[in-house]
């Protein structure tokens, strides 16, 4: 297959007077893990819903697995799995019943679904929990069951809206490990996240969204080296605001957020040299990451 798994052109969507998605062009190749990043309210979830044909765009077009969306969304979604932002498992059902009932929505026969359930439970690390009720599952288990449910139809493409939000580090690492397995199986993954670490670890390519627009696109490393100085020194402590004035002569870009001063540079030795003489100031030297890029592109203002 040479056509992309997902392609959108000029997608736009307004709710009331507010335009939430303002002309989004995306292209995701088969087998790729693609991340959509952005602060809260950037339009990530709405973009996913438009790609899935769950809401109608005001203008623009989308093609998912060679089907026009939303016109042929039913055909497209037959080969797609979705992990929503908030778990919506059926609380009245057991683990196995959740999978069985969901498989029927894809027109699968009960015997077909039954045959898939043991493998799905194995994948989700829920062996022996087939007859557990949803209430007895931990947050991580529910998330894994939601992932298993999205795989019931053996989808080519998996959409995930913030797959690890609200999970503890152990649970998050387990999900990441499973998602890597899925890409190794050749499936296409499209996820939204605001965890930069998640995007850096999983995604081959990312797009950063803000105010309904894609403002940068590329590989995580490529974007960092393109947009940002490779080294960062974070400085805090009494007198840091005074020191900041001097720092401006030592590093090409110096920013302040709250009590912390951020110095970005290709060569940070002059900054560190100077800090060694400042016993009052604490500092951390680290390589630039996706979070720095993200903050540079979308600003440090709080989003609600």
């Amino acid at each position, binding site marked *: 297959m040479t056509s992309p798994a997902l392609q959108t052109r000029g997608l736009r969507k307004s709710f009331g007077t507010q335009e939430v998605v303002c002309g989004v062009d995306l292209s995701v190749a088969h087998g790729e893990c693609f991340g959509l990043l952005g602060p809260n309210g950037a339009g990530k979830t709405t973009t996913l819903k438009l790609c899935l044909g769950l809401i*109608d765009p005001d203008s623009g077009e989308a093609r998912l697995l060679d089907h026009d969306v939303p016109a042929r969304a039913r055909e497209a979604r037959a080969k797609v799995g979705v992990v929503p932002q908030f778990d919506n498992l*059926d609380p*009245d059902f057991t683990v196995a019943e959740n999978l069985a*009932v969901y498989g029927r929505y894809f*027109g699968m026969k009960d015997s077909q679904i039954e045959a898939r359930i043991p493998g799905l439970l194995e994948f989700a690390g829920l062996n022996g929990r087939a007859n557990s009720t949803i209430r007895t599952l931990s947050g991580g288990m529910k998330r894994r069951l939601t992932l298993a449910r999205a795989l019931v139809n053996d989808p080519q493409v998996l959409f995930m809206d913030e797959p690890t939000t609200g999970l503890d580090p152990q649970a998050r690492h387990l999900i990441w490990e499973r998602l890597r397995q899925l890409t190794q199986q050749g499936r296409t993954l499209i996820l939204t996240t605001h965890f930069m670490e998640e995007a850096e670890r999983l995604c081959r390519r990312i797009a950063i969204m803000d105010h309904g627009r894609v403002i940068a696109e590329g590989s995580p490393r490529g974007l960092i080296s393109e947009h940002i100085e490779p080294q960062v020194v974070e400085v805090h402590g009494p007198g840091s605001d005074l020191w900041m004035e001097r720092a401006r002569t030592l590093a090409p870009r110096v920013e302040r957020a709250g009590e912390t001063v951020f110095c970005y540079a290709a060569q940070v030795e002059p900054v560190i040299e100077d800090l060694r003489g400042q016993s009052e100031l604490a500092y951390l030297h680290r390589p630039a990451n996706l979070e720095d890029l993200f903050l540079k592109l979308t600003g440090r203002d709080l989003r609600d």
Partner: protein
Amino acid sequence: MNARLYAPPALSLRFIPVWRRHFLVWRKLALPSILGNLGEPLIMLFGLGYGLGAVMGEIGGVSYFAFLAAGFVASSTMYAATFEALFSAFSRMHVQKTWEAIVNAPMTLDDVLLGEWAWAVTKSLAAGVCMLAVIALFGYAKSALALAAIPAAVLIGLAFGALGLCVNAIANGYDFFSYYMTLVLTPMMMLSGVFFPVDQLPGAVLAIAMALPLYHGVEIVRPLLLGSFPSNLLLHVGVLVAYSAAGFYVATVLTRKRLLN
């Protein structure tokens, strides 16, 4: 885009998995559900039917119990469909986000709504059949004609399931349903000849009554239970079918507006 919003509901057999989901939940919670559906109308029926019946004597040549029993078959059918289309559908739509999970599969909102409607009708059918069985057990079903009240219960379920889904589509919380229950259904129950004959009501009030779907439901069910063929059957069926069709269309458009825009 507006054309999609106002298009008639796309009826497809895809609703069956949705219906089966609701049935599976019901099977797990059947006992309290049956008690809720039947307990109250039966207690009311026996209390009012025997208690009030003792001082009322006969109405139109039949005992008050027999008169009231027929009315309660219609009204409990109405309430069974209503509760399902209001409270249960709202839980699935808004609280548990079950609908959202379903439409992520190759299902549409129209499939989900059709499944909800079919399920509400199933619940009213079950309520109607149970009421009929109890009434027959006590000897108040006069002839085999009473069996024809079963399809009548389906019609009542269709009408009130559709109306309930309209209310569900605009609800902002469970409390919202009090308006519909208190301001619409309770007066409708009073005006539709469930408790007393309506022909002695003032003309203007009678005219309102005749526009209400429950009135036509009672007009079909009561003669069937008392052993005679309903008069003006086509009119009564026609009104219930009209409420069902118009109600489901409006429910579909309102729900699309709520969830797809």
